[in-house]
């Protein structure tokens, strides 16, 4: 650490102190000054206060790395700070806030760059409470890279000749093979599209869903007649193959909708069972015999 850099930091803090008139900020600045002065006097006692401890680390880094207090390289600063944090016992909340502060400023700086404003806005950050440190980084000028480029410098590409040649035979044949393969794929696709059109016409989804709804209704009414408890699905069939298919599809539909449970104990050819899942208290199951009696003509 050089004495000039410490003077720079002290001067920086004094400068900000002279600008403010609010008492709480005075207190904060005084705190920073006392920390910096303790450093100046070689007082290396580690502060007990976690905030002081974290701040001292900041000063330590700024001074030992000869940072310009008006222009801190936040990328290298954050990097060093995180490394130091890992080595010493610090209050991670405070340290975290400091890192977050540095990150916020960096983010603002990068947004500034992206916005590409010609006028350089004053950096402002409200998310952190070390307001004086904020001022420390907030300079009117965004640190700008002083590049030295003669005005007239102009790069132009080297100009070379590009010879052209006719297409060779092999190239023509290769191209032909590729074109033929591509055309075959295109034709196959076109054929599949045509076939799908025909299929679509045969199976109008609207008719299909109407049929399914009717089927399910019919099967449900059959289930209702079977009473409660597990039922062998054979009991619901009432006819030939077509009826079996209709019933089975309807059962799958009901199972998918959570109305019934379907299961099979012996795989793969064992009996298939089903049971109604509707809670019993809201169910309207009818005893088959009672239902038959109801339907019977009144004598």
């Amino acid at each position, binding site marked *: 650490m050089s004495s000039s850099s410490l003077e720079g930091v002290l001067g920086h803090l004094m400068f900000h102190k002279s600008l403010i008139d609010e008492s709480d900020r005075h207190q904060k600045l005084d705190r920073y000054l006392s920390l910096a002065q303790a450093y100046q006097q070689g007082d290396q006692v580690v502060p007990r206060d976690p905030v002081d401890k974290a701040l001292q680390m900041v000063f330590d880094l700024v001074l030992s790395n000869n940072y310009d207090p008006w222009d801190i390289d936040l990328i290298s600063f954050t990097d060093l700070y995180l490394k130091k944090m890992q080595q010493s016992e610090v209050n991670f909340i405070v340290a975290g806030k400091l890192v977050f502060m540095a990150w916020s400023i960096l983010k603002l700086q990068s947004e500034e760059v992206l916005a590409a404003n010609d006028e350089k806005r004053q950096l402002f950050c409200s998310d952190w409470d070390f307001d004086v440190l904020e001022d420390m980084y907030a300079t009117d000028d965004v640190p700008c890279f002083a590049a030295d480029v003669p005005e007239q410098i102009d790069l132009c590409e080297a100009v070379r000749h590009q010879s052209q*040649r006719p297409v060779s035979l092999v190239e*023509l044949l290769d191209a032909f093979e590729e074109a033929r393969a*591509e055309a075959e794929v295109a034709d196959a696709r076109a054929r599949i599209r045509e076939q799908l059109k025909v299929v679509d016409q045969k199976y109008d989804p609207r008719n299909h869903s109407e049929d399914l709804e009717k089927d399910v209704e019919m099967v449900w009414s059959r289930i209702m007649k079977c009473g409660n408890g597990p039922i062998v699905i054979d009991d619901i069939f009432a006819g030939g193959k077509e009826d079996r298919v209709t019933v089975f599809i309807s059962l799958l539909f009901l199972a998918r909708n959570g109305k019934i449970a379907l299961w099979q104990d012996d795989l793969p050819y064992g009996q298939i069972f089903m049971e109604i899942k509707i809670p019993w208290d809201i169910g309207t199951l009818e005893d088959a015999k009672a239902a038959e009696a109801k339907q019977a003509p009144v004598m």
Partner: protein
Amino acid sequence: MDEALRAVESVLFASSRPLRMVEIEGATQLSPDVVRKAIARLKKQYDEVGSSIEVVKIGVRYSMQLRKQYSNYGMPFAEVELPKDALKTAAFIAYNQPVLQSDLAKSLGSEVYEHIKLLREANLIAAKRSGHTFMLTTSKHFAEYFGIASSRKEDIKQWMDEQTRKS
């Protein structure tokens, strides 16, 4: 005069295609007369030194190119004058001719329109209006270009079949 000669040389060297007089005049800001004289001197210079490069007039255009006896050396580094995709379209037309432009687009995609433009510019295919589209065939130049003995469409197809079997 030497500066004019060098200016014309620069323009011819940089271009990979033959240039018309007006293009050379425009790029060099020289009068037609000066350009013409510069080209003549340049040609003489390259001839006298026995260079592998020559300055030639092709139709109404001027070009700097390798002399025939040296062109093989340059081949590996030269670029093909037709893009590969356009070539594919040319091959497809040659094999299936006569073919409707609309059918071609259905089989190979809409980029064929761009290829057909290039192929017509290179004078490799011929197009004849047919309803709302074009009927495409190979041109006479096609056979010359690929060194096929006959320009009859049946012969081209047969030749392609033979070549494919060979490869």
